[in-house]
């Protein structure tokens, strides 16, 4: 399946301030995470994708169409903005029904759909009668997600949707998004909670200072990073013996022994050749390994690596 979002030499300035700087990338179908620090250009990119901003130069297309003032395309896109802004005086059903009319849903269909969506995002029914000004952050996030899903979009764009949610709420939100993705909805999601993006998204797009540092599947992005020093935590019966053996084999950059709990932290320079030799080295050492875990290939480490180099 071809890319759903394509950017070619896309730039966006705010006066003298650069929002996006000549970026080109493609976003594949499915769940894609948008990663970057504040000011990286995530919100700018999302606003261009959802037709709220125009590119200063270059081009961005969604499903092959330019988003600005394009109702035919906006019919296929749902948007959930960052922040807590919702109309404070309105009740969720009134707000969603108004937006449903605006989205082209007939009256009865709109009402049924609003109820179904509010149930789907797990907004408690006893909160439906309250004005949204009285809502917690988490409840506002759920209503915002609901309005984005009203017209059954093919692409759902979410700007920091996990903000304000408690761990249970994040888990539910992640499940909801996974369910939508399984149902064929493409999702572009920005979040600073990288661990959750890592678990949720197959693809990532890393932005910093208005530039795209990497894009593609998490595996591809990891592979793109040169001179990667791999960090591993190894749980074994004799950490000292294993450390000595690996050191003598010349594959270690360094190691730390973690007290008496049998945990050995090691750093290797050439990850590829280390993994080729790893089983042989383990057999030679005669140490029994209970668990091994990569510490450096988390999305957070990839992100830290990319944004600090």
């Amino acid at each position: 399946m071809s890319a759903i979002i394509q950017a070619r030499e896309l730039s966006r300035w705010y006066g003298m301030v650069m929002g996006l700087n000549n970026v080109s990338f493609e976003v594949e179908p499915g769940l894609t995470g948008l990663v970057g620090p504040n000011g990286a250009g995530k919100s700018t990119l999302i606003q261009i994708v959802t037709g709220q901003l125009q590119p200063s130069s270059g081009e961005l297309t969604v499903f092959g169409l330019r988003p600005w003032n394009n109702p035919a395309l906006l019919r296929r896109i749902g948007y959930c903005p960052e922040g807590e802004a919702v109309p404070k005086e309105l009740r969720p059903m009134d707000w969603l029904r108004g937006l449903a009319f605006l989205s082209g849903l007939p009256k009865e269909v709109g009402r049924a759909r609003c109820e179904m969506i509010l149930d789907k995002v797990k907004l408690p029914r006893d909160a439906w009668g309250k004005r949204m000004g009285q809502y917690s952050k988490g409840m506002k996030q759920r209503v915002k997600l609901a309005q984005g899903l009203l017209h059954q979009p093919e692409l759902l764009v979410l700007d920091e949707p996990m903000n304000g949610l408690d761990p249970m709420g994040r888990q539910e939100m992640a499940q909801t998004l996974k369910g939508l993705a399984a149902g064929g909805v493409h999702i572009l999601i920005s979040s600073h909670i990288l661990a959750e993006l890592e678990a949720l998204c197959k693809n990532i797009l890393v932005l910093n200072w208005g530039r795209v540092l990497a894009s593609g599947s998490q595996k591809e992005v990891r592979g793109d990073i040169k001179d990667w020093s791999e960090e591993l935590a190894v749980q074994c019966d004799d950490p000292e013996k294993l450390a000595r053996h690996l050191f003598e084999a010349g594959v270690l950059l360094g190691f730390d022994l973690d007290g008496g709990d049998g945990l050995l932290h090691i750093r290797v320079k050439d990850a590829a050749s280390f993994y080729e030799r790893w089983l042989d080295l383990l057999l030679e050492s005669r140490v029994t390994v209970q668990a091994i875990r990569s510490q450096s290939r988390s999305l957070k480490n990839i992100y830290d690596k990319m944004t600090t180099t």
Partner: protein
Amino acid sequence: MTEMKPPPLPPGARGEKIAVSPDFPGALRGVWLLTWRSQLSWRRLPGRLGALLVLPFLVCITTQSPQTWATRHDVLNQVSPPQLNRFFKRLQDAKAPIQSQQKDDLAQILEEEYATAVNELREAQFEGNMDLRLKRMRAASAGCSERILNRAGKVLDDTQFSKFKTFEAVHRKRMDDLINSSQSAWGRTAPFYHWLVDVYFFIILPLSCVRGCGALMRDELQADTLGFLVTRPASRARLLCVKYLSQLAWLQILLLTETLLLFSIGAWRQMPELGALLPLFVAVQLLAVPAWSALGTFLGQMTNRYMAIGLVYGAIVEMGIGRIPTNINVLSIMRHLKTLLSHNGALQAIYDWPIDSAWFSIGALAIAPIFFLGVAAALFSFMEYLPASEMQK
């Protein structure tokens, strides 16, 4: 016993694919729902009612009923006992002293004739036609003076009567001046029409419309909620038009309520010719609100300081260009509103506005919203409006 089947769920209720067909009436219905639901909440209701009642309250405390007016502006109460005593002293100085019996007779004549005239003048206050009312009041004043002189001539001697004629002439002139100044142009009705036309129709109504419609998108930007609207499957021009129409309907309801409240106060205060004025006033207001609202929408799209620019526009175009006695004054909305209102006799008598073609003014007031809204829609279609959070970065 037959089993009742539940009604079938509408499409989309179970999440199956539904056909979406955004159209103008649907968009209008949606935005109207959002508009009135957010404006008419219990929390906002006291504020709204208070705002609606401020002007009627001011009108109420600054206008008077005919009875109160007649009491406070009783022209024949001008001859008080101290004045009479001063007149008696002047007679004594002129060596024509007045006897106590003459004093009593003269005081009785004045008291009886004043009482008759006061009744005549109070009746004249209820005359609807201003010219006729003035004529009747002058006649009452003249009749009173004539009757007093006729009866006083029989009580006083020639010297005393000669002095009394001068005394009465001075008072008669003072009465006539009072009647003319109080009745010819404004009189009792002045404060009411001042509030209704000058303050409400030409200040509060335009400012309310410019404020209400200038904020159409600006308030959404400030609240960071514009993104929810512009990402709907509707063109930006359509979105602006339905927002304008919804806000316009809301303003018409609010301002019609205010107008009816003001006319109710006027009717309670027995202002003359209100029945004839009300239909014309409401009709002109129905034309004025879309024009001012469209101007506000246009200014709101241009700048976030739309109220300041609106005041500058008012000073230059409405107060300046609108008063130039050449064809260029057709640019003024107020000028067309005055043309239409001048077809009411009472307002025309008070304001003396130039009477031009009503049809031309109606046409101009119909074209103004289309023009301003068209430019505003074009601006909104091509210009970007950055959310508040973005502008702070």
